[in-house]
């Protein structure tokens, strides 16, 4: 299980810049992120090199930042591997969200949050994938 930094952002100008600046000041490197938006606010999801330190820095900066358990699954960096992974999980669980992590040839990382994390993690491991 990996830790994702989840940050609630109001749709006000400068919020993303503020987040990036605070992380820079704290010496935190962003490895991947995803920004889901609604008309009133955004949910920023960050994978950083030190999640606890990142959460503390953003919290001190006045942000609503929390750590969320997610999986990082490494799939082969070739055409078709995403559909193979999703086929493996079948239709009994919900994928809450997913987004790309980093590519380290020959693999590409996927950040995933699903409705039944322990079951999914086990199933993916059993199929021979690397999961963090």
């Amino acid at each position, binding site marked *: 299980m990996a830790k994702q930094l989840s940050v609630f952002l*109001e749709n006000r100008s400068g919020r993303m810049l503020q987040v990036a600046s605070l992380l820079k000041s704290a010496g935190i490197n962003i490895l991947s992120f995803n920004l889901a938006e609604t008309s009133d606010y955004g949910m920023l999801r960050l994978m950083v090199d030190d999640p606890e330190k990142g959460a503390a820095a953003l919290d001190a900066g006045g942000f*609503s930042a929390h750590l969320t358990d997610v999986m990082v699954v490494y799939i082969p960096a070739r055409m078709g591997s995403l559909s193979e992974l999703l086929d493996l999980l079948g239709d009994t669980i919900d994928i809450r*969200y997913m987004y790309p992590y980093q590519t380290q040839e020959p693999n590409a990382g996927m950040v995933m949050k699903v409705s039944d994390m322990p079951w999914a993690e086990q199933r993916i491991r059993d199929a021979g994938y690397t999961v963090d």
Partner: protein
Amino acid sequence: MAIWNVSKECMPAADRRQLQDARLRKLVSRLYHHVPFYRHRLQELDITPGDISGIDDIGRLPFTVKDDLRDNYPFGLFAAPESEIVRLHASSGTTGKATVVGYTRRDIEVWQECVARCLTMAGIGIGDKVQVAYGYGMFTGGLGLHYGAENLGATVIPISAGNTRRQLDFMVDLGTTAIACTPSYLAHVMENIKENQLQDLLKLRVAICGGEPWTVEMRQKIEKGLGIELFDIYGLSEIMGPGVAQDCDQHQGSHVMDDHFYAEIIDPDTLEVLPDGEVGELVLTTLTKEGIPLLRYRTKDLTSITHEVCACGRTSARISRFRGRSDDMLIIRGVNVFPSQIEAALLEISETSPHYQILVDRVRDYDTFEIAVEIDANLFSDEVSTLEKLSRRISETLQKAIGLHPTVRLVEPNTLDRSDGKAQRVIDKRRLF
């Protein structure tokens, strides 16, 4: 203009005072012997009915507040046996518990009488078609106007509130001459009339507006926009319902039906009675009620009083346009809302009530109602769908608690104003008073 009840509405001051004195003596006796709550209150003050000779002694009597009704919910303050109560009405309480009021047959007759006086003051009579667009049900607005208009002999159109399309259709097809509704709803209807260019198809002549505070500007805007005359009716369910007071065609303050309701103005902090002309809290004593009579009920409405005779010929006391409330109650779209109700509702959602702020404004004559809620650790989720569900839940919980759907806005923590250590819970941008 006609006067419904000349013998009462134009009584010489001395006769009125004599009538009020006799009614107050009878009231105190009734309460002392039939309502334990009041007997105990009077005994604590060493007062027996014989000690009260009339209005001059009213200052010795205790006040009654909304919490007294809430604490004695539902029938604890009733002075008549339940078998004599022919009607019950209810209004929202400060923290969700309703306030129940009961009416004997005679109370209903007095109510009909008072509303008939008000309608007559507005020039309404037999031959008029009165569209009652106040809500019917436990709320006193709809049925109050209905029974009064029927008593008068006008044709009642009991359409209740909402469904503007239907309101307009009936106004055109049935030939409505008078409408009874909240002023903000009337402004909304006016926009519709203008958009659909129905002005020339209407026979509308007069409107009886109440249920929420409204400004002189609002009145002028509607009167000019529709070419009708507006009258300002006042009432509250604890006292009776609509019909406690209304202005006449002079529009110089609202005549209180003071053969039935004795009005005083007090300083809300010192509780001393204020002289005519000074603004303070309106206190009402129900001189003739049988079901749930009240002594010196503090309405929380701020106004002043005058006993000068009006140019219309009526000698009853007149109260001025309201200046505000002495508590934190808001009136949004005609609905009474207490911030404490909102607090209680939010506690249903999270064990610790989140920081919130209510923003009330008026856009194109319609009240907008928004609640900003801080996303604290309890409410946070990394999933947008969860936050959306939370927004909907907040909106629905508040709708159930207060009867209005707010727009919910989720905001970052520590962004809502906390000046002087006390959170500013309500921002009302409307200028109502």
